[in-house]
């Protein structure tokens, strides 16, 4: 069967075959990333209400960002949140990966249990946490009261610090299984012979950790950290559902503020400008992380 390609040389056929293989991906990326990105850039130079007429306003949306108190506050909050949520996810993920690394009895069940929260949608898990945090029927207050750790039910979402802490707790619970799986793959790719040699040389746990495990997992760690940081910078659902940005607007993440401007205040152009700035920040952050954690020859 030639499909009319008989006149093509072997080299041309090879190139065409390669092109056909990547075509679905190219189409997917074009339709779901390149075109929306171009559209967002285009919109960001307009006064673009959700409903009504649009008009070209040049870079006004971008210059207004500098005077948007809440935009700067949300950026600050999002970075602080990322800074606080990333280490526990990574450290706990690493500990769990180490625990489920070896083939012991029922290991599949343990891995499944740790991974289970990951398969729940973030919106659903946030609703579960709203219920668990409730002062009347929530399980947290019930447990703390039964253990005599508190005298009366606590309003966890009433104060900015506690609201932030419970959000971090919920996100760690929700996402740590994913980091565990990534790190587990990295751990399992390290040949056992290296550890056996280290054992023969009398290396202890920490020496093996710092001289074998972590250096050989550099790529996996980079991937886990980059994904975790991107996920944290783009956090939205948990704040929208659990705290609704409160108390006193202290938990409005940057994506929440973009959502508010685009869909609550109907300022799609302004929301687009913020999205482009956020994209730039994410590219910069990921580049820095990748550079720091790159393979050194």
């Amino acid at each position, binding site marked *: 069967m030639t499909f009319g390609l008989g006149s093509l040389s072997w080299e041309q056929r090879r190139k065409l075959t390669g092109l056909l293989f990547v075509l679905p991906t190219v189409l997917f990326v074009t339709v779901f990333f390149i075109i929306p990105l171009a559209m967002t850039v285009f919109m960001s130079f307009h006064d673009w*209400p*959700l*409903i*009504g007429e649009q008009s070209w306003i040049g870079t006004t949306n971008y210059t207004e960002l500098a005077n948007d108190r*809440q935009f700067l506050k949300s950026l600050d909050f999002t970075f602080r949140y990322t800074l606080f949520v990333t280490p526990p996810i990574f450290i706990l993920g690493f500990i769990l990966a180490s625990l489920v690394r070896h083939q012991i009895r029922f290991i599949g069940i343990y891995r499944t249990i740790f991974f289970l929260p990951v398969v729940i949608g973030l919106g659903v898990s946030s609703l579960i946490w709203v219920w668990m945090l409730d*002062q*009347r029927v929530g399980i947290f207050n019930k447990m703390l009261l039964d253990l005599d750790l508190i005298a009366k039910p606590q*309003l966890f*979402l*009433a104060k900015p610090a506690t609201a932030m802490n419970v959000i971090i707790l919920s996100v760690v619970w929700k996402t740590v299984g994913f980091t565990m799986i990534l790190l587990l793959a990295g751990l399992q790719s390290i040949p056992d012979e290296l550890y056996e040699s280290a054992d023969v040389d009398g290396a202890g746990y920490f020496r093996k950790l710092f001289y074998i495990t972590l250096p050989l997992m550099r790529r996996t760690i980079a991937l886990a950290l980059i994904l975790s940081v991107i996920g944290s910078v783009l956090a939205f659902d948990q704040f929208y559902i659990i705290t*609704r*940005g*409160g*108390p*006193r*607007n202290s938990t*409005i993440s940057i994506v*929440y503020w973009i959502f*508010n401007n685009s*869909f*609550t*205040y*109907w300022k799609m152009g302004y929301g687009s400008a913020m999205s482009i700035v956020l994209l730039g920040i994410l590219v910069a952050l990921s580049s820095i992380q990748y550079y720091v954690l790159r393979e050194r020859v």
Partner: protein
Amino acid sequence: MTPRRIIFAVMIMALCMGALPLSAQDDGVSMTMWVRNIGDQVQELVDAWNDRGGSQIQLTVIPPNEFVTKMGAAIAAGESPDIASIDLIYAPAFAAAGQLLDITDWVDALPYADDLLPAHSELGTYEGRKYAVPFLIEGSFIIYNKGLFEAAGLDPETPPTTWDEMLEAARAITAIDDETYGYYFAGACAGCNAFTYLPFIWASGGDVLSDDYNAATIASDPIVREALEYYRTMWEEGLIPESASIDDGSSFVSAFGTGTIGMAGTGAFGINTYRNDHPDLELGAFHIPGKEGGASSFGGGDVIAIGSGTQHPQEAWAFLEWMMSDETQLEHYAARNRTTVRVSMLENEYSQDDPLVLTAASALAVGKSPYSLVYNDLFNDPNGPWLEMIQIAILDGDIEGALQLGQDRFTQIIEG
């Protein structure tokens, strides 16, 4: 017949049977209608309309906080409903954006056009043209628990008429026991506080916006500060339960129903809810008082409009006209303790013996509704300046900071 053929035959039969009701429905036009979730009144009304035969309405209920967002997104996507029941304060914004059908001629031709509630009709009007008519009528007032008044040594038949009298009543009720509180407000609900807290300011002669709604008067009007101090006093003295600070509106109605709250702001929607769900409560109602007396109310609720993209304007208008008719107003509004959309019918054969319904209806006489294209951004947004100002002043006690923040953010939003 092979098992495969049997399954195939059963599937064909099931498809044919399923298609029968659809064919029957095709005799009439099918329209979509959106409403925010504020009780079952609209479902009853739509059911009654559908039972008449002819055009049918498919009702979609949207969570109140998300109505504007979803409606805006649906319009942008070209999927707006044929009929929309809109929180009346958003009507000007939707009309200004050209998303509502101009129904001026139809409304003016009604024999009772001048009888429609004026505040709601005004908000359904944009640049002299009519885009919406009154639909759900809510005037805010204070509901109180007569049993707790009596237990606190207060006269249950003489409700408070000033801020001080309310404060004294709240103190006496709170003193009953550790589980009982004098007053309740939803401390994390922006819209609830526009509905039940703004009238305290209006009734005292103050306002947070200028008469033309184009400037903020938060920092310059002394009544605003006094109103914040008033609620702050109740909060500081523990007359309001601590859980109110995180109530985003989900307990706005139910908190009073527990029977441990002396007084709380509400609207006509509360009357049936409390009576049906808590028949043991002995209820009273009074208008939201001013500092030294007087009264005010937030003229809230919904107006109903036809989407400009509808394919069935005649049928949609037929529903609106049926809704406003004498019979519907009497049998589906008045008979169910709901406030009518017609002024001349506010007092009717059903309301005369019901002091709560009369209070709800008469609240509209002292009612006010801000006319602003940025109402949502100012008052209803959970992250907007109104709620942030209330929380900082009342819950944190920083009244000076709250006034400044409110003034600045209101001004910023109004000036665009």
